[in-house]
Protein backbone atom coordinates (compact mmCIF):
# COMPACT_ATOMS: atom_id res chain seq x y z
CA UNK A 1 0.00 0.00 0.00
CA UNK A 2 3.02 2.33 0.24
CA UNK A 3 4.08 4.42 -2.73
CA UNK A 4 7.39 6.22 -3.32
CA UNK A 5 7.60 9.38 -1.29
CA UNK A 6 7.68 12.77 -2.97
CA UNK A 7 11.19 14.30 -2.60
CA UNK A 8 10.13 17.78 -3.64
CA UNK A 9 9.65 18.73 0.01
CA UNK A 10 13.33 17.99 0.72
CA UNK A 11 15.41 19.16 -2.28
CA UNK A 12 19.18 18.69 -2.03
CA UNK A 13 21.77 21.19 -3.30
CA UNK A 14 24.06 20.23 -6.17
CA UNK A 15 27.47 18.87 -5.24
CA UNK A 16 28.26 16.27 -2.60
CA UNK A 17 25.80 15.62 0.22
CA UNK A 18 26.89 13.69 3.30
CA UNK A 19 24.42 12.16 5.77
CA UNK A 20 25.90 11.25 9.15
CA UNK A 21 25.09 10.69 12.82
CA UNK A 22 27.28 11.21 15.87
CA UNK A 23 26.19 7.88 17.31
CA UNK A 24 28.03 6.08 14.48
CA UNK A 25 31.77 5.32 15.12
CA UNK A 26 32.47 5.35 11.38
CA UNK A 27 30.94 8.83 11.06
CA UNK A 28 33.09 9.98 13.99
CA UNK A 29 36.11 8.43 12.27
CA UNK A 30 35.51 10.34 9.01
CA UNK A 31 34.84 13.68 10.75
CA UNK A 32 38.30 15.04 9.71
CA UNK A 33 37.77 13.75 6.17
CA UNK A 34 34.51 15.67 5.90
CA UNK A 35 36.22 18.77 7.33
CA UNK A 36 38.90 18.37 4.66
CA UNK A 37 36.31 17.92 1.91
CA UNK A 38 34.40 21.01 2.97
CA UNK A 39 37.37 23.15 2.03
CA UNK A 40 37.92 21.55 -1.38
CA UNK A 41 34.49 20.84 -2.77
CA UNK A 42 30.84 21.82 -2.52
CA UNK A 43 29.89 19.71 0.49
CA UNK A 44 26.59 19.81 2.35
CA UNK A 45 26.36 17.74 5.51
CA UNK A 46 23.18 16.55 7.23
CA UNK A 47 23.27 15.20 10.77
CA UNK A 48 20.60 12.81 11.97
CA UNK A 49 21.17 13.16 15.71
CA UNK A 50 23.35 16.18 16.53
CA UNK A 51 23.55 19.37 14.45
CA UNK A 52 26.90 20.26 16.11
CA UNK A 53 28.47 17.20 14.52
CA UNK A 54 30.73 17.15 12.53
CA UNK A 55 32.45 20.06 14.27
CA UNK A 56 33.44 23.22 12.42
CA UNK A 57 31.09 22.55 9.50
CA UNK A 58 27.85 24.27 8.52
CA UNK A 59 25.79 21.17 9.38
CA UNK A 60 22.14 20.99 8.40
CA UNK A 61 19.74 19.58 10.96
CA UNK A 62 18.03 16.35 9.88
CA UNK A 63 17.00 15.20 13.34
CA UNK A 64 13.42 14.92 12.02
CA UNK A 65 14.90 12.56 9.37
CA UNK A 66 13.03 14.18 6.49
CA UNK A 67 16.02 14.14 4.13
CA UNK A 68 17.21 10.73 5.31
CA UNK A 69 13.77 9.15 4.81
CA UNK A 70 12.85 10.78 1.53
CA UNK A 71 16.28 10.07 -0.02
CA UNK A 72 16.22 6.42 1.13
CA UNK A 73 19.35 6.68 3.28
CA UNK A 74 19.84 3.28 4.88
CA UNK A 75 23.46 3.57 6.08
CA UNK A 76 25.55 6.35 7.60
CA UNK A 77 27.78 7.81 6.42
CA UNK A 78 26.21 8.10 2.97
CA UNK A 79 27.66 10.35 0.28
CA UNK A 80 25.31 11.45 -2.52
CA UNK A 81 26.33 13.27 -5.65
CA UNK A 82 23.55 15.61 -6.73
CA UNK A 83 23.35 17.17 -10.17
CA UNK A 84 20.42 19.39 -11.22
CA UNK A 85 18.60 18.27 -8.09
CA UNK A 86 18.85 14.58 -8.95
CA UNK A 87 20.97 11.88 -7.40
CA UNK A 88 23.59 10.59 -9.84
CA UNK A 89 25.72 8.44 -7.53
CA UNK A 90 26.01 7.32 -3.92
CA UNK A 91 28.45 5.46 -1.68
CA UNK A 92 28.08 4.26 1.89
CA UNK A 93 30.45 3.58 4.79
CA UNK A 94 34.15 4.50 4.67
CA UNK A 95 36.37 3.12 1.92
CA UNK A 96 39.37 5.30 1.16
CA UNK A 97 39.67 4.31 -2.52
CA UNK A 98 35.95 4.70 -3.09
CA UNK A 99 35.90 8.11 -1.43
CA UNK A 100 38.91 9.28 -3.44
CA UNK A 101 37.25 8.21 -6.69
CA UNK A 102 33.89 9.66 -5.67
CA UNK A 103 35.23 13.05 -4.55
CA UNK A 104 38.02 13.22 -7.14
CA UNK A 105 40.37 14.43 -4.41
CA UNK A 106 43.50 12.25 -4.98
CA UNK A 107 45.17 12.91 -1.62
CA UNK A 108 41.99 12.74 0.44
CA UNK A 109 42.76 11.74 4.04
CA UNK A 110 46.45 11.50 3.19
CA UNK A 111 47.35 13.77 6.08
CA UNK A 112 45.60 11.65 8.66
CA UNK A 113 48.52 9.31 9.23
CA UNK A 114 49.29 5.69 8.50
CA UNK A 115 47.10 4.47 11.33
CA UNK A 116 43.98 5.83 9.71
CA UNK A 117 42.06 2.76 8.46
CA UNK A 118 41.35 2.24 4.80
CA UNK A 119 37.96 0.74 5.37
CA UNK A 120 35.13 0.71 7.90
CA UNK A 121 31.51 -0.37 7.39
CA UNK A 122 28.83 2.22 8.09
CA UNK A 123 26.06 2.07 10.66
CA UNK A 124 22.29 1.85 10.25
CA UNK A 125 20.55 5.11 9.39
CA UNK A 126 18.09 6.34 12.03
CA UNK A 127 15.50 6.54 9.25
CA UNK A 128 15.44 2.73 9.03
CA UNK A 129 15.49 2.21 12.81
CA UNK A 130 12.47 0.00 13.54
CA UNK A 131 11.40 2.30 16.37
CA UNK A 132 11.13 5.23 13.95
CA UNK A 133 9.88 3.73 10.68
CA UNK A 134 6.17 3.53 11.56
CA UNK A 135 6.06 7.19 12.52
CA UNK A 136 8.03 8.19 9.40
CA UNK A 137 5.78 6.16 7.14
CA UNK A 138 2.71 7.85 8.54
CA UNK A 139 4.34 11.31 8.21
CA UNK A 140 5.19 10.80 4.56
CA UNK A 141 2.44 8.37 3.72
CA UNK A 142 0.38 8.68 0.62
CA UNK A 143 -1.66 5.69 1.75
CA UNK A 144 -4.88 7.66 1.86
CA UNK A 145 -6.42 5.86 4.84
CA UNK A 146 -9.94 7.16 4.93
CA UNK A 147 -11.21 6.34 8.40
CA UNK A 148 -12.25 9.25 10.56
CA UNK A 149 -9.46 10.33 12.94
CA UNK A 150 -10.50 10.29 16.58
CA UNK A 151 -8.34 12.42 18.88
CA UNK A 152 -8.12 11.53 22.52
CA UNK A 153 -7.51 14.38 24.93
CA UNK A 154 -4.25 14.69 26.84
CA UNK A 155 -5.81 13.57 30.12
CA UNK A 156 -7.93 10.83 28.58
CA UNK A 157 -6.80 7.25 29.16
CA UNK A 158 -6.92 5.90 25.61
CA UNK A 159 -7.95 2.41 26.73
CA UNK A 160 -10.81 3.78 28.82
CA UNK A 161 -11.75 6.11 25.96
CA UNK A 162 -12.16 3.15 23.62
CA UNK A 163 -14.32 1.35 26.18
CA UNK A 164 -16.42 4.49 26.55
CA UNK A 165 -17.01 4.61 22.80
CA UNK A 166 -18.33 1.05 22.80
CA UNK A 167 -15.55 -0.35 20.60
CA UNK A 168 -14.58 -3.22 22.90
CA UNK A 169 -15.94 -6.72 23.36
CA UNK A 170 -15.22 -6.33 27.06
CA UNK A 171 -11.49 -6.95 26.94
CA UNK A 172 -8.98 -4.17 26.32
CA UNK A 173 -8.31 -3.32 22.68
CA UNK A 174 -5.08 -2.01 21.16
CA UNK A 175 -5.39 1.64 20.03
CA UNK A 176 -5.63 1.56 16.20
CA UNK A 177 -3.20 4.38 15.46
CA UNK A 178 -2.51 5.21 11.84
CA UNK A 179 0.98 3.71 12.17
CA UNK A 180 -0.38 0.41 13.49
CA UNK A 181 -3.09 0.23 10.85
CA UNK A 182 -0.56 0.99 8.08
CA UNK A 183 1.64 -1.80 9.39
CA UNK A 184 -1.35 -4.17 9.58
CA UNK A 185 -2.13 -3.41 5.93
CA UNK A 186 1.32 -4.74 5.00
CA UNK A 187 -0.27 -8.12 5.70
CA UNK A 188 -2.27 -7.99 2.48
CA UNK A 189 -1.71 -7.05 -1.13
CA UNK A 190 -5.28 -5.75 -1.29
CA UNK A 191 -5.94 -2.03 -1.47
CA UNK A 192 -7.22 -0.44 1.77
CA UNK A 193 -10.37 0.78 0.02
CA UNK A 194 -11.29 -2.62 -1.47
CA UNK A 195 -14.71 -3.76 -0.31
CA UNK A 196 -14.33 -7.11 1.44
CA UNK A 197 -17.98 -7.90 1.97
CA UNK A 198 -21.26 -6.57 3.35
CA UNK A 199 -21.36 -7.03 7.11
CA UNK A 200 -24.57 -7.70 9.05
CA UNK A 201 -26.66 -6.71 10.85
CA UNK A 202 -26.47 -3.15 9.47
CA UNK A 203 -25.49 -4.48 6.01
CA UNK A 204 -22.47 -2.20 5.77
CA UNK A 205 -19.90 -2.39 2.97
CA UNK A 206 -16.69 -3.13 4.83
CA UNK A 207 -13.29 -2.08 3.44
CA UNK A 208 -9.95 -3.81 3.92
CA UNK A 209 -8.98 -0.73 5.95
CA UNK A 210 -11.82 -1.21 8.45
CA UNK A 211 -10.89 -4.86 8.84
CA UNK A 212 -7.28 -3.81 9.48
CA UNK A 213 -8.39 -1.28 12.12
CA UNK A 214 -10.34 -3.95 13.98
CA UNK A 215 -7.55 -6.51 13.53
CA UNK A 216 -5.15 -4.09 15.22
CA UNK A 217 -7.62 -3.66 18.08
CA UNK A 218 -8.00 -7.43 18.43
CA UNK A 219 -4.22 -7.83 18.78
CA UNK A 220 -3.48 -9.43 15.40
CA UNK A 221 -0.11 -9.32 13.67
CA UNK A 222 -0.08 -8.26 10.00
CA UNK A 223 0.54 -11.82 8.83
CA UNK A 224 -2.81 -12.89 10.32
CA UNK A 225 -4.74 -10.40 8.19
CA UNK A 226 -5.27 -12.71 5.16
CA UNK A 227 -6.92 -15.23 7.50
CA UNK A 228 -9.15 -12.56 9.02
CA UNK A 229 -10.17 -11.22 5.59
CA UNK A 230 -11.07 -14.66 4.25
CA UNK A 231 -12.89 -15.61 7.45
CA UNK A 232 -14.96 -12.44 7.20
CA UNK A 233 -15.81 -13.13 3.56
CA UNK A 234 -16.87 -16.67 4.47
CA UNK A 235 -18.91 -15.51 7.47
CA UNK A 236 -20.84 -12.97 5.42
CA UNK A 237 -22.03 -15.39 2.75
CA UNK A 238 -25.77 -16.15 2.61
CA UNK A 239 -25.01 -19.84 3.36
CA UNK A 240 -23.19 -19.07 6.58
CA UNK A 241 -25.82 -16.50 7.58
CA UNK A 242 -23.86 -14.38 10.04
CA UNK A 243 -26.93 -12.21 10.53
CA UNK A 244 -29.02 -15.05 11.90
CA UNK A 245 -26.14 -16.43 13.92
CA UNK A 246 -25.72 -13.05 15.56
CA UNK A 247 -29.42 -12.53 16.18
CA UNK A 248 -30.24 -15.97 17.53
CA UNK A 249 -31.15 -16.63 21.15
CA UNK A 250 -28.98 -19.77 20.84
CA UNK A 251 -25.42 -20.17 22.17
CA UNK A 252 -23.45 -20.29 18.96
CA UNK A 253 -20.98 -17.95 17.33
CA UNK A 254 -18.65 -18.14 14.32
CA UNK A 255 -15.82 -20.67 14.73
CA UNK A 256 -12.86 -20.59 12.33
CA UNK A 257 -10.89 -23.76 11.56
CA UNK A 258 -7.64 -23.04 9.69
CA UNK A 259 -5.95 -25.51 7.30
CA UNK A 260 -2.82 -25.36 5.17
CA UNK A 261 0.78 -24.19 5.62
CA UNK A 262 -0.32 -20.77 6.89
CA UNK A 263 -1.16 -22.39 10.24
CA UNK A 264 2.51 -22.90 10.98
CA UNK A 265 3.75 -19.84 9.11
CA UNK A 266 1.84 -17.53 11.45
CA UNK A 267 2.56 -19.60 14.55
CA UNK A 268 -0.87 -21.01 15.32
CA UNK A 269 -1.24 -23.68 17.99
CA UNK A 270 -2.85 -26.96 16.91
CA UNK A 271 -1.45 -28.88 19.90
CA UNK A 272 -1.65 -28.62 23.68
CA UNK A 273 -4.66 -26.51 24.77
CA UNK A 274 -5.68 -25.99 21.12
CA UNK A 275 -9.18 -24.85 22.04
CA UNK A 276 -7.97 -22.79 24.97
CA UNK A 277 -6.03 -19.61 25.67
CA UNK A 278 -2.40 -18.70 25.22
CA UNK A 279 -1.64 -18.48 21.51
CA UNK A 280 -1.79 -15.04 19.93
CA UNK A 281 -2.92 -16.10 16.46
CA UNK A 282 -5.59 -18.51 17.73
CA UNK A 283 -6.88 -15.90 20.19
CA UNK A 284 -6.90 -12.79 18.02
CA UNK A 285 -8.05 -13.95 14.56
CA UNK A 286 -11.46 -15.04 15.81
CA UNK A 287 -11.66 -11.94 17.96
CA UNK A 288 -10.95 -9.70 14.96
CA UNK A 289 -13.86 -11.26 13.06
CA UNK A 290 -16.21 -10.64 15.97
CA UNK A 291 -14.96 -7.05 16.42
CA UNK A 292 -15.74 -6.34 12.74
CA UNK A 293 -19.26 -7.68 13.24
CA UNK A 294 -19.59 -5.51 16.34
CA UNK A 295 -17.96 -2.28 15.21
CA UNK A 296 -18.58 -2.23 11.46
CA UNK A 297 -21.75 -4.33 11.29
CA UNK A 298 -23.23 -2.86 14.46
CA UNK A 299 -23.95 -6.26 16.03
CA UNK A 300 -24.11 -5.63 19.77
CA UNK A 301 -25.06 -8.06 22.53
CA UNK A 302 -28.46 -6.96 23.76
CA UNK A 303 -28.99 -5.17 20.44
CA UNK A 304 -29.38 -7.50 17.47
CA UNK A 305 -27.42 -10.19 19.37
CA UNK A 306 -30.24 -11.72 21.43
CA UNK A 307 -28.40 -14.75 22.84
CA UNK A 308 -30.09 -16.12 25.95
CA UNK A 309 -26.75 -17.12 27.41
CA UNK A 310 -24.17 -16.95 24.62
CA UNK A 311 -20.87 -18.76 25.09
CA UNK A 312 -17.27 -17.75 25.83
CA UNK A 313 -16.23 -18.64 22.28
CA UNK A 314 -18.15 -15.61 21.05
CA UNK A 315 -15.21 -13.46 22.13
CA UNK A 316 -13.53 -15.15 19.19
CA UNK A 317 -12.83 -18.79 18.44
CA UNK A 318 -10.26 -19.86 15.90
CA UNK A 319 -8.06 -22.92 15.83
CA UNK A 320 -5.96 -24.79 13.29
CA UNK A 321 -6.38 -28.44 12.46
CA UNK A 322 -3.38 -30.61 13.42
CA UNK A 323 -2.66 -31.94 9.93
CA UNK A 324 0.70 -33.40 10.97
CA UNK A 325 0.31 -37.05 11.99
CA UNK A 326 -3.43 -37.02 11.37
CA UNK A 327 -5.12 -40.19 10.08
CA UNK A 328 -7.66 -37.92 8.37
CA UNK A 329 -7.44 -35.89 5.21
CA UNK A 330 -7.52 -32.23 6.28
CA UNK A 331 -11.00 -30.80 6.85
CA UNK A 332 -10.56 -28.30 3.99
CA UNK A 333 -9.62 -31.13 1.60
CA UNK A 334 -12.59 -33.20 2.72
CA UNK A 335 -14.67 -30.14 1.89
CA UNK A 336 -13.33 -29.85 -1.63
CA UNK A 337 -10.10 -27.83 -1.62
CA UNK A 338 -6.69 -28.96 -2.85
CA UNK A 339 -4.14 -30.33 -0.36
CA UNK A 340 -1.65 -27.67 0.71
CA UNK A 341 -4.13 -24.86 0.05
CA UNK A 342 -4.45 -22.37 2.91
CA UNK A 343 -8.10 -22.29 3.95
CA UNK A 344 -10.65 -21.42 6.58
CA UNK A 345 -13.78 -23.33 7.43
CA UNK A 346 -16.47 -21.34 9.22
CA UNK A 347 -18.73 -23.30 11.53
CA UNK A 348 -21.57 -21.90 13.61
CA UNK A 349 -21.05 -23.50 16.99
CA UNK A 350 -20.38 -23.39 20.71
CA UNK A 351 -18.87 -25.53 23.41
CA UNK A 352 -16.84 -27.65 23.61
CA UNK A 353 -18.41 -30.68 25.28
CA UNK A 354 -15.98 -33.33 26.49
CA UNK A 355 -15.74 -36.98 25.46
CA UNK A 356 -13.82 -39.27 27.83
CA UNK A 357 -12.85 -42.73 26.62
CA UNK A 358 -9.66 -44.04 28.20
CA UNK A 359 -10.36 -47.73 27.65
CA UNK A 360 -11.18 -48.21 23.97
CA UNK A 361 -8.30 -49.77 22.06
CA UNK A 362 -10.29 -50.56 18.93
CA UNK A 363 -11.69 -48.13 16.41
CA UNK A 364 -15.11 -49.76 16.65
CA UNK A 365 -15.31 -49.28 20.41
CA UNK A 366 -14.16 -45.67 20.17
CA UNK A 367 -16.62 -44.94 17.36
CA UNK A 368 -19.40 -46.25 19.62
CA UNK A 369 -18.27 -43.85 22.35
CA UNK A 370 -18.25 -40.96 19.90
CA UNK A 371 -21.75 -41.88 18.69
CA UNK A 372 -23.15 -42.19 22.21
CA UNK A 373 -21.85 -38.74 23.12
CA UNK A 374 -22.84 -37.14 19.80
CA UNK A 375 -26.38 -38.41 20.30
CA UNK A 376 -26.87 -35.77 23.00
CA UNK A 377 -26.00 -32.75 20.83
CA UNK A 378 -28.74 -30.14 21.44
CA UNK A 379 -31.07 -32.86 22.79
CA UNK A 380 -30.96 -36.66 22.53
CA UNK A 381 -34.37 -36.57 20.83
CA UNK A 382 -33.59 -33.88 18.26
CA UNK A 383 -32.02 -34.78 14.93
CA UNK A 384 -31.09 -33.60 11.43
CA UNK A 385 -31.61 -29.90 12.07
CA UNK A 386 -28.40 -29.28 14.04
CA UNK A 387 -24.82 -29.94 12.89
CA UNK A 388 -21.81 -30.72 15.05
CA UNK A 389 -18.04 -30.84 14.84
CA UNK A 390 -16.07 -33.68 16.37
CA UNK A 391 -12.49 -32.72 17.29
CA UNK A 392 -10.50 -35.92 17.65
CA UNK A 393 -7.38 -35.76 19.82
CA UNK A 394 -4.07 -37.35 18.73
CA UNK A 395 -4.37 -40.22 21.22
CA UNK A 396 -7.89 -41.07 20.07
CA UNK A 397 -6.78 -40.64 16.44
CA UNK A 398 -4.01 -43.18 17.09
CA UNK A 399 -6.60 -45.75 18.19
CA UNK A 400 -8.42 -45.20 14.90
CA UNK A 401 -5.21 -45.24 12.84
CA UNK A 402 -4.01 -48.48 14.48
CA UNK A 403 -7.09 -50.16 13.01
CA UNK A 404 -6.57 -48.49 9.66
CA UNK A 405 -9.55 -46.11 9.93
CA UNK A 406 -9.45 -42.91 7.94
CA UNK A 407 -11.92 -40.03 7.74
CA UNK A 408 -14.46 -41.72 5.49
CA UNK A 409 -14.41 -44.96 7.50
CA UNK A 410 -15.12 -43.04 10.71
CA UNK A 411 -17.79 -40.88 9.08
CA UNK A 412 -19.50 -43.95 7.62
CA UNK A 413 -19.51 -45.86 10.89
CA UNK A 414 -20.77 -42.87 12.86
CA UNK A 415 -23.58 -42.41 10.35
CA UNK A 416 -24.62 -46.04 10.94
CA UNK A 417 -24.38 -45.76 14.71
CA UNK A 418 -26.31 -42.50 14.70
CA UNK A 419 -29.23 -43.80 12.67
CA UNK A 420 -32.03 -43.52 15.18
CA UNK A 421 -35.37 -45.26 15.66
CA UNK A 422 -37.78 -42.35 15.44
CA UNK A 423 -40.19 -43.96 17.90
CA UNK A 424 -37.60 -43.11 20.58
CA UNK A 425 -37.54 -39.49 19.47
CA UNK A 426 -41.23 -38.63 19.67
CA UNK A 427 -42.55 -35.90 21.93
CA UNK A 428 -43.58 -37.38 25.27
CA UNK A 429 -41.35 -40.47 25.06
CA UNK A 430 -39.36 -41.08 28.27
CA UNK A 431 -41.62 -38.58 30.00
CA UNK A 432 -40.00 -35.71 28.07
CA UNK A 433 -42.28 -33.32 26.20
CA UNK A 434 -39.52 -32.27 23.79
CA UNK A 435 -39.26 -34.42 20.69
CA UNK A 436 -40.59 -35.00 17.18
CA UNK A 437 -44.28 -34.54 16.31
CA UNK A 438 -46.49 -37.67 16.26
CA UNK A 439 -46.43 -38.23 12.51
CA UNK A 440 -42.72 -39.01 12.57
CA UNK A 441 -43.07 -42.46 14.24
CA UNK A 442 -41.91 -45.73 12.64
CA UNK A 443 -38.92 -44.35 10.75
CA UNK A 444 -35.16 -44.49 10.84
CA UNK A 445 -33.73 -40.99 11.05
CA UNK A 446 -30.12 -39.81 11.03
CA UNK A 447 -28.93 -37.76 14.01
CA UNK A 448 -27.04 -35.55 11.58
CA UNK A 449 -27.95 -34.64 8.02
CA UNK A 450 -25.49 -35.75 5.34
CA UNK A 451 -22.32 -33.67 5.76
CA UNK A 452 -23.68 -32.32 9.04
CA UNK A 453 -20.95 -33.89 11.19
CA UNK A 454 -17.56 -32.25 10.60
CA UNK A 455 -14.46 -34.04 11.86
CA UNK A 456 -11.15 -32.37 12.68
CA UNK A 457 -7.91 -33.55 14.30
CA UNK A 458 -6.29 -31.34 16.95
CA UNK A 459 -4.93 -31.25 20.48
CA UNK A 460 -2.01 -32.18 22.68
CA UNK A 461 -0.24 -35.52 22.52
CA UNK A 462 -1.49 -36.80 25.87
CA UNK A 463 -5.11 -37.43 26.80
CA UNK A 464 -7.66 -39.96 25.61
CA UNK A 465 -10.27 -37.23 25.23
CA UNK A 466 -12.02 -35.70 22.25
CA UNK A 467 -14.37 -32.76 21.94
CA UNK A 468 -17.80 -32.05 20.50
CA UNK A 469 -18.52 -28.58 19.24
CA UNK A 470 -22.30 -28.31 19.05
CA UNK A 471 -23.77 -26.49 16.09
CA UNK A 472 -26.68 -24.18 15.42
CA UNK A 473 -29.70 -24.73 13.19
CA UNK A 474 -28.50 -25.76 9.73
CA UNK A 475 -29.54 -25.37 6.13
CA UNK A 476 -31.74 -22.62 4.69
CA UNK A 477 -33.20 -22.00 8.12
CA UNK A 478 -29.83 -21.41 9.73
CA UNK A 479 -26.20 -21.82 8.78
CA UNK A 480 -24.20 -24.10 6.52
CA UNK A 481 -20.45 -24.51 7.13
CA UNK A 482 -18.42 -22.55 4.57
CA UNK A 483 -14.88 -23.41 3.45
CA UNK A 484 -12.84 -20.83 1.56
CA UNK A 485 -9.32 -20.69 0.18
CA UNK A 486 -7.07 -17.97 1.59
CA UNK A 487 -5.74 -16.33 -1.53
CA UNK A 488 -4.69 -12.85 -0.49
CA UNK A 489 -0.96 -12.34 -0.02
CA UNK A 490 1.11 -10.03 2.13
CA UNK A 491 2.91 -6.93 0.89
CA UNK A 492 6.18 -7.74 2.57
Amino acid at each position, binding site marked *: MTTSPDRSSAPLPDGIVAVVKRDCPTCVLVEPVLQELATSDALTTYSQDDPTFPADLPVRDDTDLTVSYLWDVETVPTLLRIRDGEEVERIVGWDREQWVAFTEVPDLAAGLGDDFPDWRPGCGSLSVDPSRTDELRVRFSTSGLKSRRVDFAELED*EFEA*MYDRGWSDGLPVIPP*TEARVARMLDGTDRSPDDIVTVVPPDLVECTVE*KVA*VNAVMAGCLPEYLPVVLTALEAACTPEFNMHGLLATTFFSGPIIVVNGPIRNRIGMNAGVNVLGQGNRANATIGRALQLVVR*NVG*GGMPGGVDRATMGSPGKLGWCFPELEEGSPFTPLSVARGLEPGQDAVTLFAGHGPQSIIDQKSRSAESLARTFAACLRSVAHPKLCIKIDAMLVVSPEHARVLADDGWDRSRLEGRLAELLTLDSDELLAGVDGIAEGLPEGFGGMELPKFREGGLLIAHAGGGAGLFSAIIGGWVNGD*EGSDPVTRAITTRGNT
Partner: protein
Amino acid sequence: MSTVLDPTAERTVAERARLDRPASLDGKVVGLLDISKPRGDVFLDRLEEELRGRGAADVQRFSKPTYTKPAPVDLRHEIATKCDLIIEALAD
Protein backbone atom coordinates in the same frame (compact mmCIF):
# COMPACT_ATOMS: atom_id res chain seq x y z
CA MET B 1 -2.65 13.36 22.73
CA SER B 2 -3.08 10.26 20.64
CA THR B 3 -5.09 9.82 17.47
CA VAL B 4 -6.73 6.58 16.38
CA LEU B 5 -8.76 5.49 13.38
CA ASP B 6 -12.49 5.01 13.88
CA PRO B 7 -13.22 1.25 13.78
CA THR B 8 -16.93 1.71 13.11
CA ALA B 9 -18.84 2.12 9.86
CA GLU B 10 -19.12 5.85 10.66
CA ARG B 11 -22.79 5.84 9.78
CA THR B 12 -25.41 8.25 10.88
CA VAL B 13 -28.44 6.34 11.97
CA ALA B 14 -31.51 7.28 9.96
CA GLU B 15 -34.28 8.21 12.35
CA ARG B 16 -37.87 8.09 11.22
CA ALA B 17 -40.79 9.34 13.27
CA ARG B 18 -43.28 6.65 14.21
CA LEU B 19 -46.84 6.92 13.05
CA ASP B 20 -49.31 8.01 15.70
CA ARG B 21 -51.05 5.18 17.47
CA PRO B 22 -54.60 4.81 16.08
CA ALA B 23 -57.39 5.84 18.46
CA SER B 24 -59.30 2.67 17.63
CA LEU B 25 -59.11 -0.39 15.42
CA ASP B 26 -62.33 0.51 13.60
CA GLY B 27 -61.93 -0.04 9.88
CA LYS B 28 -58.22 -0.89 10.16
CA VAL B 29 -56.48 -3.78 8.45
CA VAL B 30 -54.13 -5.48 10.88
CA GLY B 31 -51.26 -7.69 9.70
CA LEU B 32 -49.86 -10.46 11.87
CA LEU B 33 -46.32 -11.57 10.98
CA ASP B 34 -45.31 -15.04 12.10
CA ILE B 35 -41.51 -15.29 12.16
CA SER B 36 -41.83 -19.09 11.81
CA LYS B 37 -40.83 -20.12 15.29
CA PRO B 38 -42.60 -23.14 16.83
CA ARG B 39 -45.95 -22.25 18.42
CA GLY B 40 -45.90 -18.71 17.08
CA ASP B 41 -49.17 -19.61 15.34
CA VAL B 42 -50.81 -20.45 18.69
CA PHE B 43 -50.09 -16.96 19.94
CA LEU B 44 -51.17 -15.29 16.68
CA ASP B 45 -54.41 -17.31 16.41
CA ARG B 46 -55.43 -15.96 19.78
CA LEU B 47 -54.43 -12.42 18.82
CA GLU B 48 -56.45 -12.64 15.60
CA GLU B 49 -59.49 -13.72 17.57
CA GLU B 50 -59.08 -10.76 19.91
CA LEU B 51 -58.54 -8.26 17.11
CA ARG B 52 -61.56 -9.39 15.13
CA GLY B 53 -63.65 -9.00 18.28
CA ARG B 54 -62.41 -5.43 18.73
CA GLY B 55 -63.49 -3.94 15.44
CA ALA B 56 -60.59 -4.58 13.05
CA ALA B 57 -61.90 -4.52 9.47
CA ASP B 58 -59.61 -7.40 8.55
CA VAL B 59 -56.73 -9.41 9.96
CA GLN B 60 -54.18 -10.69 7.45
CA ARG B 61 -51.59 -13.32 8.23
CA PHE B 62 -48.01 -13.31 6.95
CA SER B 63 -44.99 -15.43 7.73
CA LYS B 64 -41.25 -15.14 7.20
CA PRO B 65 -39.61 -18.09 5.38
CA THR B 66 -37.31 -18.55 8.39
CA TYR B 67 -36.88 -16.87 11.73
CA THR B 68 -33.09 -16.78 11.30
CA LYS B 69 -33.01 -14.27 8.47
CA PRO B 70 -34.52 -10.83 7.94
CA ALA B 71 -37.92 -10.70 6.20
CA PRO B 72 -37.50 -10.55 2.40
CA VAL B 73 -38.03 -7.16 0.79
CA ASP B 74 -41.07 -8.38 -1.16
CA LEU B 75 -42.77 -9.55 2.00
CA ARG B 76 -42.13 -6.24 3.73
CA HIS B 77 -43.53 -4.40 0.73
CA GLU B 78 -46.63 -6.59 0.64
CA ILE B 79 -47.31 -5.96 4.32
CA ALA B 80 -46.79 -2.21 3.91
CA THR B 81 -49.23 -1.99 1.02
CA LYS B 82 -51.94 -4.19 2.50
CA CYS B 83 -52.01 -3.27 6.17
CA ASP B 84 -52.59 -0.25 8.37
CA LEU B 85 -51.00 -1.92 11.40
CA ILE B 86 -48.61 -4.80 11.90
CA ILE B 87 -47.85 -7.03 14.85
CA GLU B 88 -44.73 -9.19 14.67
CA ALA B 89 -44.71 -12.25 16.88
CA LEU B 90 -41.66 -13.85 18.40
CA ALA B 91 -42.55 -17.10 20.06
CA ASP B 92 -41.12 -20.39 21.22
